[in-house]
């Protein structure tokens, strides 16, 4: 019984050594890496356009709203007024 147990343990150890030897050279594939901090401008860089907020999330102040309404009114008047035709 003890002999069998000893045999199993030694053979398991041998198997681990063998697996280690198989993995060692393949593990060497990971000994190189690149510095990710360097800013490289290339075609691979992400080109994300700046987004503009179209819907206001904060409440608009009264005076700003009044100015905007006045500007809108002035624009409507100028666009609806008949154009002068020179003789």
């Amino acid at each position, binding site marked *: 019984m003890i002999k069998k147990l000893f045999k199993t343990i030694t*053979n398991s150890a041998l198997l681990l050594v063998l697996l280690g030897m*198989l993995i060692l050279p*393949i593990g*060497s*594939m990971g000994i*190189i890496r690149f510095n990710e901090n360097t800013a490289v401008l290339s075609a691979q860089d992400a080109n994300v356009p700046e987004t503009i907020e179209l819907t206001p999330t904060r409440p608009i102040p009264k005076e700003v709203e009044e100015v905007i309404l006045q500007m809108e009114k002035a624009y409507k008047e100028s666009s609806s007024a008949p154009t002068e035709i020179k003789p």
Partner: protein
Amino acid sequence: MLSKVLTKLIDKAIVPAILLLSSRIVAIVVVARYLNITFQVERTGFVFDSAADYIKVNSYSALVMVGILLIGIFYILIKALAFHESHIKPHLTSKLFSLRAHSLIQNSFDLYTQGAIWLSYAYLLLIVNGIMTLSNIMYRWVFYVTLGATVLTTVLFILDIEEEIKVTKNENAEFDPDKKYLSENGAVE
């Protein structure tokens, strides 16, 4: 007490492990120098300045590894296909003995343990190269070269195993299982 097969496999794994490991390290340095790529050596390994440089050095050094692997496998394959103890041609045996190169003649146990080790490395390299190709850190064609080399060497090993099976079957046929003559003479009922 110790498993004979495991001991033999460990024994045969030492040389390819050292060869592949050293070839990878040497290839990284040589390829980087050849392509004028700067790198730093840190505790974790070689660090390159850009991803493009890294991909280039990684791909070419992996290719060197595949080359070394192919040389090793083809050496075993030549021994297995031409100088295999079970099916070597008599004139070739005499020639090898006259050239004092009879150590090339090996039995199936030696050849198949070596073959198993080298093929294991080939398949492990194929898996790692596949993962690297999928992660876009290796050129696609390097993976295809590894795949082609692995498939080719596997097929050649299978051809040798088939030859071995054929020889074993022929050897078995020498012992005639026909007991008709013995039963006629009353030796066997």
